[in-house]
């Protein structure tokens, strides 16, 4: 349900970097831990981008699996297996991948250089 908030934040970031140019593609990197549903994000992005320079832009979403590392014993694991407590020593897991909510790149239209 937070895909509406996320898509608004994505749109703001994209429009800032588009600097007035029409946007045709938006490429995102989204970590597993953000709990974003791809179809839902695409639905809301289409909605919030209407009547903006992003209207009709293709949304590409790269999924980043989560990886945790134990702060005590350096063991790495996927939280799908054992959540956030280390399977070796019970220590707390530090997130080293999976928290991404990143606009990686955009594709924009530019007038052909006539010089």
């Amino acid at each position, binding site marked *: 349900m937070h895909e509406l*908030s996320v898509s608004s934040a*994505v749109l703001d970031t994209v429009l800032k970097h588009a600097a007035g140019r029409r946007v045709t593609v938006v490429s995102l990197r989204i970590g597993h831990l953000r709990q974003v549903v791809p179809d839902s994000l695409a639905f809301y992005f289409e909605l919030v981008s209407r009547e903006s320079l992003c209207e009709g832009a293709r949304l590409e979403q790269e999924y980043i699996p989560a990886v945790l590392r134990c702060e005590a014993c350096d063991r790495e694991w996927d939280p799908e297996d054992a959540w956030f407590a280390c399977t070796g020593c019970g220590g707390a897991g530090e997130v080293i991948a999976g928290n991404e909510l990143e606009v990686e*790149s955009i594709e924009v239209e*530019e007038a052909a250089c006539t010089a």
Partner: protein
Amino acid sequence: MHRVKVRVVEDALDANNTIARANRDDFDRHDVTVVNLMSAPGAGKTTLLERVLGGLGDVRAGVLEGDVQGSYDADRLASLHVPVTQLNTDNGFGGECHLDANMVRSALPALPLGEIDLLVIENVGNLVCPAEFHVGEDARIMVSSVTEGEDKPLKYPLMFRTCELVLVNKIDLLPHLEFDMERFLHHLDAVHPGVPRMLVSARTGEGIDAFREWLLELPARREVPA
């Protein structure tokens, strides 16, 4: 027309975080400690505040009430004689379901920062979106009531991971429920190992003294950014 790829590599929440830092600077300048209080709707945030804000001694508290609509919570807190500022989120798309840094920023002129030491921001009741948006707080407290069941930490890990204190509320109802506290705490430790937690009842006052102590000690613990 031709198409060019522009490398961005920016977190979509950076814009929010930048405004959150500006809020934090303003709070720091006035030496105000800020708590972001979050929970599902109906977990008892306002009742907890009614219980705890009365007995803070020399610490002058204020509340920023975030609601989609109305001022019911602010009206309830008015009797405590603490300054309460209402922030409604319903001018967004059907009403924003959370507070973000910009909304809090817009409310700053209405907050008596020079006259308070502790600001409690009561977020919109929601276990999802508020977790994503920092507003400039020193600490996040989340309230989970026993009527919500034992599995909530596993269903909303981002919310349970992002807070510094978990209040397990409505424990006076435990005799009437099949809530397994041990199981809940096991789930809590699975998503946020060792996070401080307190078992409380806003209705009977059980555990409230410990929560009040935690709040009173917060200014000394807070990290002032370099």
